[in-house]
């Protein structure tokens, strides 16, 4: 497989795809730099804001600090119905229980009234007592309990609790759901829920120590609202993971944005490796589990926000003093930064990509065109010199004005020179054969004179050997000039209408007499006329027959055949005998080429078939040799194909 021009240019074209890729990389690097700057800015902002956040003296520090066993009341936005279910609290499904203790329960706070909900799994509802414990400001312990027998809403009473505490129980297959409304009284300082066996005093509470109830801090919220820097979202986070304030900001909840999710944007992210995917997730829940807790360090980090495709930069910094285990979290959307999520940027990148693909396509088409021209030139150059040695000096595309045109013209010049050289070589053979005659005559005449002087037998033998050598040399020269003259004769020959059938029949008779050691059979179609020169054609047939007799075994038949199709006359001379030597059989018809394997017949110079070819070509015909196999007998057929004479042409 060659690495053609098209492939090369395609490769280069593909390299231009680096352009959009580079631009995407550039965007990403810019994005990173801007994010870092934004993070730094946010960190500084957090550090300068933190000292301003403070508690109102009137509020218990309990609200702002964390206790290991505290229960957290989520702020509700509406009054639930006491029906045993939590679905009407307006919380989302991910809201986490108010306590880390067991049994888990949820606590809601609407205008000071607490709502408690628990989903209880009871192994033996009949033998179970459920108890609610609350501790008031004096530290008095009030326990209210009930047996989870009946479905319905009922009051829970205790001697120290004035305000009515009402509960609703909805048993189900595994246990039941419990919803309790606790009016905002002192009692609700601490709350606890217990599930215990019903074999003790009904006032007994047998669970964890009731934890202190924490609510969203109103003063901290106000303080934060007052000091929040413009353009960022802020909230406070206790060290135990509870958020102490709602998210305060211009857009407290992040937009669900569709931009940046398009196919190409996703593709770019995939190609580049999605650095956002590796970002830690910033949870929006009211309570953050320990493994969701982000580094307390004030260094800014980029986080994804759960359930959105948005990214934000956050900065955390601890508060001081009484609020030492509370963290101020600032959060800013990164949409202000030019990122891959930006749709116009994605569009720009898309355009670059499309243009690149177009350019690559154009390059490919251009390369195909170039490569086609080069291949056409290569083909023409490969066939410029025919098997017969004829040189054509015209190549296609030589008028082109570019470098390929230059190459084509260069080739033409080269071929022209080669042709001149070839013609010079041809004339050289001619000249040489002339020039050699005189020295040969000198040698020959010297030997003739030597023959007349007194020589010993040995000397005479040597002289005769030398004479034989000269005779051979002369035979070579004669063969060469015969070929030259045949060439001339073929060029100058006068053509006339000729009865080839009759000529061939006549020749067959003559050959029978001349070559007594071979038989001649004919297969001649009558009345075949061609336009030709009889003398030349006879000379050609002489050569072909002579050639055949030299290879055909004695007493074998040589077949002369003549056929005619619509416009072609085919003349064949076939003989049995050795097959053609391997290789290009067309070369047999070149001068100085012989198919003889031994050189016993040194007079044979390989001009016979060359002359036959010259004559065939002078008649606008072609000559070819091919192996034949009749049964198990090998042989050779030389066929001459000539244009038949069309009736009416002179």
């Amino acid at each position, binding site marked *: 497989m060659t690495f053609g021009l098209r492939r090369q240019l395609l490769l280069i074209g593909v390299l231009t795809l680096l352009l959009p890729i580079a631009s995407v990389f550039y965007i990403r690097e810019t994005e990173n730099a801007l994010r870092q700057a934004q993070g730094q800015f946010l960190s500084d902002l957090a550090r300068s804001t933190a000292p301003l956040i403070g508690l109102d003296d009137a509020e218990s520090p309990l609200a702002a600090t964390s206790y290991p066993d505290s229960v957290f009341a989520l702020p509700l936005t509406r009054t639930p119905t006491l029906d045993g279910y939590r679905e009407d609290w307006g919380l989302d499904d991910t809201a986490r229980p108010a306590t880390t203790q067991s049994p888990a329960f949820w606590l809601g706070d609407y205008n000071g009234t607490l709502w408690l909900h628990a989903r209880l799994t009871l192994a033996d509802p009949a033998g179970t007592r459920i108890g609610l414990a609350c501790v008031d400001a004096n530290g008095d312990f009030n326990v209210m309990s009930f047996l989870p027998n009946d479905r319905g809403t009922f009051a829970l009473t205790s001697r120290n609790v004035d305000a009515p505490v009402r509960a609703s129980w909805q048993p189900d297959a595994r246990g039941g759901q419990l919803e309790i409304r606790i009016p905002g009284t002192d009692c609700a300082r601490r709350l606890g829920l217990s599930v215990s066996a019903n074999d003790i005093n009904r006032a007994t509470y047998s669970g964890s120590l009731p934890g202190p109830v924490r609510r969203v801090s109103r003063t901290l919220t106000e303080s934060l609202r007052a000091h929040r820097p413009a353009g960022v979202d802020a909230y406070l986070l206790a060290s135990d993971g509870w958020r102490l304030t709602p998210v305060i900001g211009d857009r407290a909840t992040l937009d669900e944005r569709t931009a940046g999710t398009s196919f190409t944007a996703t593709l770019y992210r995939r190609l580049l490796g999605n650095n956002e995917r590796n970002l830690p997730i910033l949870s929006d829940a009211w309570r953050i589990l320990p493994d969701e807790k982000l580094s307390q360090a004030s260094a800014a980090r980029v986080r994804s926000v759960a359930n959105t495709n948005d990214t934000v930069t956050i900065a955390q910094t601890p508060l001081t003093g009484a609020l030492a285990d509370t963290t101020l979290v600032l959060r800013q959307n990164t949409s202000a930064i030019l990122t891959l999520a930006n749709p116009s940027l994605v569009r720009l990148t898309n355009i670059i990509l499309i243009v690149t693909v177009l350019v690559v396509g154009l390059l490919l088409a251009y390369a195909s065109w170039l490569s086609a021209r080069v291949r056409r030139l290569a083909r023409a150059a490969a066939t410029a010199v025919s098997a017969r040695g004829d040189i054509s000096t015209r190549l296609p595309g030589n008028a082109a004005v570019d470098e390929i045109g230059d190459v084509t013209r260069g080739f033409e010049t080269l071929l022209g020179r080669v042709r001149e050289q070839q013609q010079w070589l041809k004339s050289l053979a001619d000249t040489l054969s002339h020039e050699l005659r*005189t020295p040969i005559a000198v040698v020959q005449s010297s030997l*003739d004179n030597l023959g007349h002087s007194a020589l010993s037998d040995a000397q005479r033998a040597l002289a005769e050997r030398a004479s034989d050598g000269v005779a051979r040399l*002369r035979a070579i020269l004669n063969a060469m000039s*015969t070929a030259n*003259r045949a060439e001339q004769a073929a060029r100058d020959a006068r053509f006339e209408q000729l009865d080839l059938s009759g000529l061939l029949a*006549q020749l067959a008779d003559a050959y029978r007499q*001349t070559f007594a050691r071979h038989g001649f059979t004919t297969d001649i179609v009558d009345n075949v006329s061609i336009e030709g020169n009889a003398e030349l054609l*006879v000379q050609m047939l002489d050569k072909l027959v002579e050639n055949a007799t030299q290879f055909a075994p004695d007493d074998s038949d040589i077949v002369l055949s003549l056929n005619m199709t619509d416009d072609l006359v085919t003349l064949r001379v076939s003989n049995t005998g050795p097959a053609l030597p391997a290789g290009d059989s067309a070369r047999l018809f070149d001068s100085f080429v012989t198919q003889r394997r031994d050189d016993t017949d040194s007079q044979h110079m390989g001009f016979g078939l060359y002359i036959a070819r010259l004559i065939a070509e002078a008649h606008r015909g072609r000559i070819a040799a091919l192996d034949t196999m009749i049964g198990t007998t090998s042989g050779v057929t030389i066929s001459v194909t000539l244009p038949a004479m069309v009736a009416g042409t002179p």
Partner: protein
Amino acid sequence: MTEFTTDSRRQVAIVEDDIALGANYREAFTREGYSVALFAERQSALTAFEETLPDLVVIDVNLGTDVEGGFELCRALRQRSATLPIIFLTARDSEFDAVSGLRLGADDYLTKDIGLNHLLARVAALFRRQQALQAPATHSERMQRGQLTIDEHSFSVTWQGSAVTLTLTEYWLVHALARHPGHVKSRQQLMDAANTVLDDNTVTSHVKRIRRKFAELDDAFDAIETVYGMGYRWRPGH
């Protein structure tokens, strides 16, 4: 330069620019009893011929840088004498050169392929012919074939009573063909008869020239028949 002596030997002039070849010719001709003058170029030969003409001249066409010197020399000699036997002996074997040489009135046009013995035989034959022509038919040996008469003594041929001027080679070819009318003579046989080494094409062109010479006398001349693939024969009955 060798001056012609007044000895009784026949005098042969050889104009040959190749010194070695000339020397060989001189040796052979001397051995045969001729008196030989050897010239290497045209001018010295012409100067010598001013004084006295030799009995026979052998000329090379190409005399060194004087590429057509032989032809010029032949033309000058023919102006001096219509009967002086002139033989071209040259390396130039093209038909064009042969025709040019013969047109200038040479008696034969030979290529240097010819061996010394053949050359000597021709020279002897030319002298015989000249002698016969100068001293007409005392003992002519005639061969009659229809309208053709061949005088084997004087190497002369007549057709319908008119003389056909043939070169020695042409004479021998006609002689070989006419001797056995109807018999095909191959080109090789004809070459042997003409005491020369020619290639097939040269035989063909010789026959062509012979036909033309006869046709000048007789438009209807067709006595020499081409037998394709074999050679030529003299049509019986002519």
